């Protein structure tokens, strides 16, 4: 769509320049007099251009998009591999979650103790640093390796991408959980996340659910 080489390393100034040109060409503002059908088509194109730019300007989103493209190509519908984080990380995250659960029950009784608070804050800082490292590695050396890899090497890099993305997802979730506990320990936390939803989901007929199929944002099919 942008006429740029299909690589993870993107010249962001050039991408922006081409995005502005495409945005101009396809923006509904310049097609007000067109018939309704034509306007709807232009709006859809404009949405696609915007989504594509959003994906391509962010190095992590680029990797995520690449993984989806490659998976879509190589796997049959339904048996997309679930991204897996390294077992050591899972074990570690599990331990932090346990400590968090304890902290929550502590907070439910009163306020968080000074030591608990300090430990949690420290953990959050170290996880944030690791998240940053992981993102740098993904956007930097890993992305560069993909760009220069021979076709035979690609599956291995793809697997590394998936692992890094999964690690990132776990880190982000745990950081968010930590932040929630740290920020809201003055409020009562116990059961807050579960109550109040019961009523909405009470009807036996229509429990609504998100699927494990994880669709994606307006995938640009260039």
């Amino acid at each position: 769509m942008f006429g740029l080489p299909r690589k993870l390393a993107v010249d962001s100034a050039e991408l922006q320049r081409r995005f502005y040109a495409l945005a101009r060409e396809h923006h509904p503002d310049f097609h007000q007099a067109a018939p309704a059908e034509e306007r709807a088509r232009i709006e859809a194109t404009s949405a696609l251009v915007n989504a594509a730019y959003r994906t391509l300007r962010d190095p992590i989103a680029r990797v995520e998009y690449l993984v989806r493209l490659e998976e879509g190509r190589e796997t049959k519908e339904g048996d997309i591999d679930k991204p897996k984080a390294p077992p050591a990380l899972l074990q570690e995250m599990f331990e932090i979650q346990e400590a968090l659960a304890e902290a929550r029950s502590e907070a439910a009784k009163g306020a968080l103790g000074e030591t608990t608070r300090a430990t949690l804050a420290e953990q959050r800082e170290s996880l944030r640093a690791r998240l940053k490292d992981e993102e740098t590695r993904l956007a930097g050396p890993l992305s560069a390796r993909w760009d220069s890899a021979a076709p035979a090497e690609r599956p291995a890099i793809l697997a590394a991408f998936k692992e890094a993305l999964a690690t990132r997802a776990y880190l982000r979730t745990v950081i968010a959980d930590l932040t929630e506990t740290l920020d809201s320990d003055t409020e009562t936390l116990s059961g807050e996340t579960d109550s109040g939803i019961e009523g909405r989901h009470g009807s036996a007929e229509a429990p609504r659910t998100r699927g494990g199929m994880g669709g994606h944002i307006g995938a640009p099919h260039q």
Partner: protein
Amino acid sequence: MSSRIIGIDLGTTNSLVAYVDEATGLPRVIPDADGRPLLPSVVAFTPDGIVVGEPARRQLARRPADTVYSVKRLMGRGFEDVKDEARYLPFRILAGEGLVRLAVGGREVTPPEVSAVVLKALKERAERHFGESVEKAVVTVPAYFNDAQRQATKDAGRIAGLDVVRIVNEPTAASLAYGLHRLSEGVVAVYDLGGGTFDVSILRVKDGVFEVLATNGDTHLGGDDFDRVLALWLLEDIAARHHTELDRDCVDLARDPEAMQELRLAAEAAKIRLSSEERTTLTLPFAGFTYRREMTRADLERLVEPLVGRTLGPCRRALADAGLSAADIDEVVLVGGSTRVPLVRRRVQELFGKTPHSQLNPDEVVALGAAVQAHILAGGITNMLLLDVTPLSLGIESLGGIVNVLIPRNTTIPTSAREMFTTSADGQTLVDLHVLQGERELAKDCRSLGRFELRIDPMPAGMPKIEVTFLIDANGILQVQAKEQRTDKEDSFTYAEADVETRMLIEARNEADTVLVHAGRALKQGAHLVDVAERAAIETAVAALRAARAGDDRDRIHEATTAVNRATEHLAEVLMDAALKGALGSRRATEILGER
């Protein structure tokens, strides 16, 4: 039909209309007959009819219960959203489900209906200026307005007879007005503190493209709040200094809407004076005593400091979302009357480390920008393009009451997103899609935009493939589609569409009521003046209207209303004739009217 598009700033306190002058290529505000550019966004519902603008503003203290101001703060909101501030409003807000309704001047009105009165006045102002009818407008809204508030604004336009061809965010509009000549390429922060709302937008201006990188704000923070804290402070001071008189006369000022309105207006005036002067004297005459006190700018700043502080958080969040720090901002633009407050300027300057722009009148700059956008849409400008964003994340409620975000905040619009969902129970035939807007993780903490149910064929849990598509148009308004892919069952909705129908039905009924009252009165006064056949015709038309009014068919109500009007036309003429005869002899009313 004219293809002219006007730009309208529908403000909390004041509204304006502007256009781009073909000769100079510059946007201009259209003043009223007396040369005033601002139209106070105040509507009074008096026994003699609806009054708007300056005359209505003068009614504020005299008829507080029937004079609506700051209605923008109620647009697209439910009673629960506004009940806290409703306590401070002298007009009555009706409790109930759905969007708020006001009880003023002996009738019920919705906020869009009140706004429509303001829009109509601006439309007529523009029509007088151009000497031709105007049907299309670009209308601005706070960037942080949600979907419901945007829809309500579009509805207001529709009620006023204006096709709102585009909703534009106020700070972005302001950047367009500045962008014509005054901005160089770079990153711009627009700080917009108006009468009732606060917005901040970070934009990149390059190659004629105005790309909004992030936006944030608070739709319930503005000059009105400054006035309120000041008025409450004055109230306490009056109570402390004049308790003897107050007790003697058994007066509770807080329960006296007229006194409170006087107090609010005095507070507003003092606030405005303190922007240019260091000190001012307030004089307020009450029954039995006169309150007088001197106030300094420091007094005011102490009172409003927390409110000004509340604008800084959104500024920092917008910067963070744009992936920038304050040092990356090249220029700062101030918009909205409340940015005249020196404390606001100081805080903005401290935060961004730049002297803000304020060459353009902060009251007019949004309207000027709306005119520029209108001119772009009309094809008059082709080298400028505005790429705006959606201010709030949009998603679907999924299992456990968690919001599954489809479109994150600050996504460039138009945009679309698609995601697959499935069912969790075997044989499920109804899938409840709950569309939400907001930044919180749980559905109950976000704003519900609507629910709709998709009927599907029974299948084992996890089997259905429900594709949900969100499309946000260039106005920032969402459309949702859902489709079960295995069976091709489909449904879609635009939020509040059904609601608009309901409101238009209510309007039709209100109109019918007015006509029925008039017809009833005419029949009572003038039944003896017309023949039996005519009386029967009127009675038949009235009965038909009553029947139509009881139903839900808006078109039928309209038709029946018109029929009654037609049937009573002659009677009304006869009645007027009879009334005029006394004073003017025997000439017919039509002759007299014809002489004008």
